[in-house]
């Protein structure tokens, strides 16, 4: 132990850590730890200069282990592993102490936070001296991508993958492609026919030799890891010929990446009973108006409504229905539909009831300006209730600029209903090991730096399954997801984490408990040698087998019993 030479680096993270932890004192403390030969504090360890500092010390001070006390390892462990690799150290000789998320951000007593940080650093150093170099495995990448969901996001992602020269398997639950966009009439802000845009995209996807389209199909399981996913797809019978064996309706796809493009569900306004949707036929949703506009039939039996009201924010920005977020598209959808109605019914009175107008994006505010210029009135009043009034309905609310209660009789009410996470998000998140944000949508790996990646390497998000988006943003997101999904395919091989389980055959009793416990099917009993073996390609390093093994024959590399116990001892000291 005394032979190890550990360098400890305390990051200020600007003031994120330094404001609540005495970083200078922490570094001074670290120097006193057994095995530590130097300790420094620095404003941003993840910066180029911070990394250079580590590289220089590794060379000049002959460090053989590095401890970085900074943010979560989920954030920057790869950064520091790369840094030591460049300096000639094995990347597994890095240990991180999370003194930001687990210390500075959650405590406000500086003295006690500093004390806690010293324990975390002591624990990291205790573990660091026991770290062993591990060899990273190179995994060959299967040159294909499965795209789940055939809406506009899935289509755009599929086409991008196919055009890059790789196989794309597009799995769509329904019998046709296009998803929610099939119900739309025109785009904003350019008023293009959505179906023309969609038809072009669908025909390019369908015609592409690299694309396999699986309609009426669902993904039933996803196993493996980046570069080597095994995806089971079940297809419902309709497209199978007579006499086809029912067991043939499922197939296995082996691909390098998976793109999730499962979309959203529209908010059901029956959950706001005060708006009378489902009760009054003249109360409809923006989606329904879109369908009517697309069909060229407003459903008014010839008697054009004289007074039309649009209501913004139905089911969005509303904690009462559990949707605190803005759905991002409704303001522009309403501006567009109001403009379309203006053109169709020049004599009608068209009013948009809003509490905030959010027309962001290229050409959007200009579109809003033009909509008003064409005679659509915007009234800052969010309607609280809709009641029957003979053949019409009455909007009841407050004009908040006039501070006056209002009651307005109208012929047609259009509710701008927002977006929600798809009803199957929970089952998908379990199957793909995807995290969800509090709003129910799938969580990206980083809100700014990794908007299409997920916490599971090789699985990417495209479109509204990650959060509400308009068509343009959805396609941009989908193409970004496809580009990221192509990275491992283009490289041809990926480095798989070496932190996997290994079996000591001398101790193994061939009991098979590990085989039962493993969620990834990695361990197997070798019938000839009479011991368990672990397939390192399938192993995700979760450690379940190591814990369950009664003979302690399995050990999880990079989290060995010795390392973990040393860490705990240092914490408790």
């Amino acid at each position, binding site marked *: 132990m005394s032979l190890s030479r550990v360098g400890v680096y305390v990051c200020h993270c600007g003031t994120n850590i330094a404001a609540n932890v005495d970083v200078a004192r922490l570094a001074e403390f670290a120097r006193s730890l057994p095995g530590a030969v130097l300790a420094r504090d620095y404003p941003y360890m993840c910066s180029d200069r911070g990394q250079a500092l580590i590289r220089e010390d590794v060379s000049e001070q002959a460090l053989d282990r590095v401890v970085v006390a900074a943010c979560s390892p989920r954030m920057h462990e790869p950064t520091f592993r790369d840094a030591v690799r460049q300096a000639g150290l094995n990347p597994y000789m890095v240990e991180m102490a999370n003194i930001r998320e687990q210390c500075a951000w959650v405590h406000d007593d500086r003295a006690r936070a500093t004390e806690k940080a010293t324990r975390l650093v002591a624990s990291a150093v205790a573990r660091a001296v026991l770290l062993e170099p591990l060899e990273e495995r190179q995994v060959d990448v299967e040159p294909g991508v499965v795209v789940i969901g055939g809406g506009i996001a899935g289509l755009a992602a599929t086409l991008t993958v196919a055009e890059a020269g790789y196989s794309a398997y597009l799995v769509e639950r329904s019998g046709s492609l296009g998803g929610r966009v099939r119900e739309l009439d025109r785009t904003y802000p350019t008023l293009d026919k959505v179906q023309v845009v969609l038809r072009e995209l669908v025909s390019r996807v369908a015609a592409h030799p690299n694309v396999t389209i699986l309609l009426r199909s669902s993904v039933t399981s996803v196993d493996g890891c980046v570069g080597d996913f095994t995806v089971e797809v079940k297809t419902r019978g309709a497209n199978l010929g007579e006499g086809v064996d029912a067991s043939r309706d499922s197939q296995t796809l082996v691909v390098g990446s998976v793109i999730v493009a499962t979309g959203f569900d529209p908010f059901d306004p029956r959950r706001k009973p*005060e708006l009378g949707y489902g009760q009054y036929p003249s109360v409809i949703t923006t989606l329904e108006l879109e369908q009517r506009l697309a069909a060229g039939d407003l459903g008014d039996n010839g008697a054009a409504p004289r007074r039309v009201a649009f209501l913004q924010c139905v089911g969005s920005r509303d904690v*009462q229905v559990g949707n605190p977020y803005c759905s991002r598209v409704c303001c522009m959808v309403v501006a567009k539909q109001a403009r379309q109605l203006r053109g169709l019914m020049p004599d009608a009175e068209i009013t948009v009831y809003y509490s905030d107008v959010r027309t962001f994006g290229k050409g959007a505010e200009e579109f809003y300006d033009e909509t008003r210029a064409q005679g659509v009135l915007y009234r800052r009043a969010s309607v*609280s209730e809709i009641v029957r009034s003979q053949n019409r309905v009455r909007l009841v609310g407050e004009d908040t600029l006039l501070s006056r*209660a209002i009651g307005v009789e109208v012929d047609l009410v259009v509710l701008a209903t927002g977006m929600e996470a798809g009803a199957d998000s929970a089952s998908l998140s379990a199957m793909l090991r995807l995290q969800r944000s509090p709003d129910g949508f799938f969580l990206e790996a980083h809100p700014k730096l990794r908007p299409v990646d997920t916490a599971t390497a090789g699985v990417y998000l495209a479109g509204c399954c990650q959060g509400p988006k308009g068509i343009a943003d959805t396609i941009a997101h989908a193409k970004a997801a496809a580009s990221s999904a192509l990275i491992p395919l283009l490289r041809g091989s990926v480095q798989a984490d070496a932190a996997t389980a290994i079996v000591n055959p001398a101790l193994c009793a061939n009991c098979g408990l590990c085989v039962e416990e493993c969620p990834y099917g990695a361990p197997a009993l070798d019938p000839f040698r009479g011991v368990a073996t672990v397939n390192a390609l399938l192993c995700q390093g979760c450690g379940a087998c190591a814990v369950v093994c009664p003979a302690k024959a399995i050990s999880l590399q990079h989290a060995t019993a010795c390392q973990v116990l040393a860490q705990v001892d240092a914490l408790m000291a």
Partner: protein
Amino acid sequence: MRTQPLVEQMELMGCIQCGRCTGGCPLARKTALNIRSLIYDMLVAPEMDVHAHQELWDCTCCFTCVERCPKDVRPAELIIALRGEMVESGRIPETVGAALMGVFRQGNPSGIAREDRSAWVGDGPQPKAAQEGCELLYFVGCSPSYDPRLQTVPRTLARVFSQAGTDFGTLGTEENCCGSEVQRMGEAGLFEMLVEENGELIRRTGASRLVTTSPHCYTALKNEYALGKVEVLHYTQLLADLLAHGQLAFDREVPRIVTYHDPCFLGKHNQIYEEPRAVLNAIPGLQLVEMDRNRERSLCCEGGGGRMWAEGTNPEERLSAQRVEEAAATGADVLAVACPFCLLTLEDAVKVAGLEDQLRVMDVAELVADALDLPVTNQIGAPLARSTGPEREC
């Protein structure tokens, strides 16, 4: 007063000024009451003269604003807090002061003698004293105890509870105002005292269930008293439960078309919509029709939030007048209610509108009495003497 403390306590910074509170407020259409604008005033101005806002006494605490707010600001609770500021200063409407004094002195807002609280029993069987122990504690409430028009309701319920074989008792003349309206008139100190006294009295009976006549008592006892293991029920819930378990069955036909008015304190405050309807639907021959606005959309009768005692500033037509028109439009011949305040306000409104020949206001309990052929029904519709207490303004 300084606005900052209430801005913080009531989390008013969460308000986005959308106006769904005032937009949904049934009084805002009639008076100067505008809670959205008042919140804005409080956010931008460090000082506010609360006495310049007498319209705060208009609020019925129907909680439509609380239901509608998309940001979980609780506007009605701000109104109660602002009333509290007025109560604290001692400058309050005379009728409010009298009601609070009545509760303090006699345990009821009408200030009628405490020893007359069991008058509702009339010539009916004397219920058991809950103080001697019982499984079900029947909390009668102030207005049903004293108001001759309302007394038929507890009288009926007591017979129904007996018939269903429940082991029930009442607190007799020891029963005290629950304080629901006291709290909503802003007298937090008196309310706290009532919670302590009544809570002790209730716990001492050892009852495992408590049933109330009034949704107002129900709201206070269920949500604002920490009664622990005592299950608090509104009587419509108990009747629905007795019917479901076969402990109660209706055999007499009541061939009436009935529309049911959801009381705010049962519906919007506690989301109890189905049990009263289940009771009505169990009555043979009774046809239930719905008003356009029902359940969470029900229009307030203007009797809650202390409004039975605070006149408010509404110079226009009562909400109850609008509500009976809505009821009449359904073609129903009975407007059923499950709240003593609704019974009084809507019955008055029927008279004012001259709808007596067309529409009769009945408590659900009274329809139940009809369906059970209980003798107490004889009194329904009979001319009743007015309360001997201070004049009620309605």
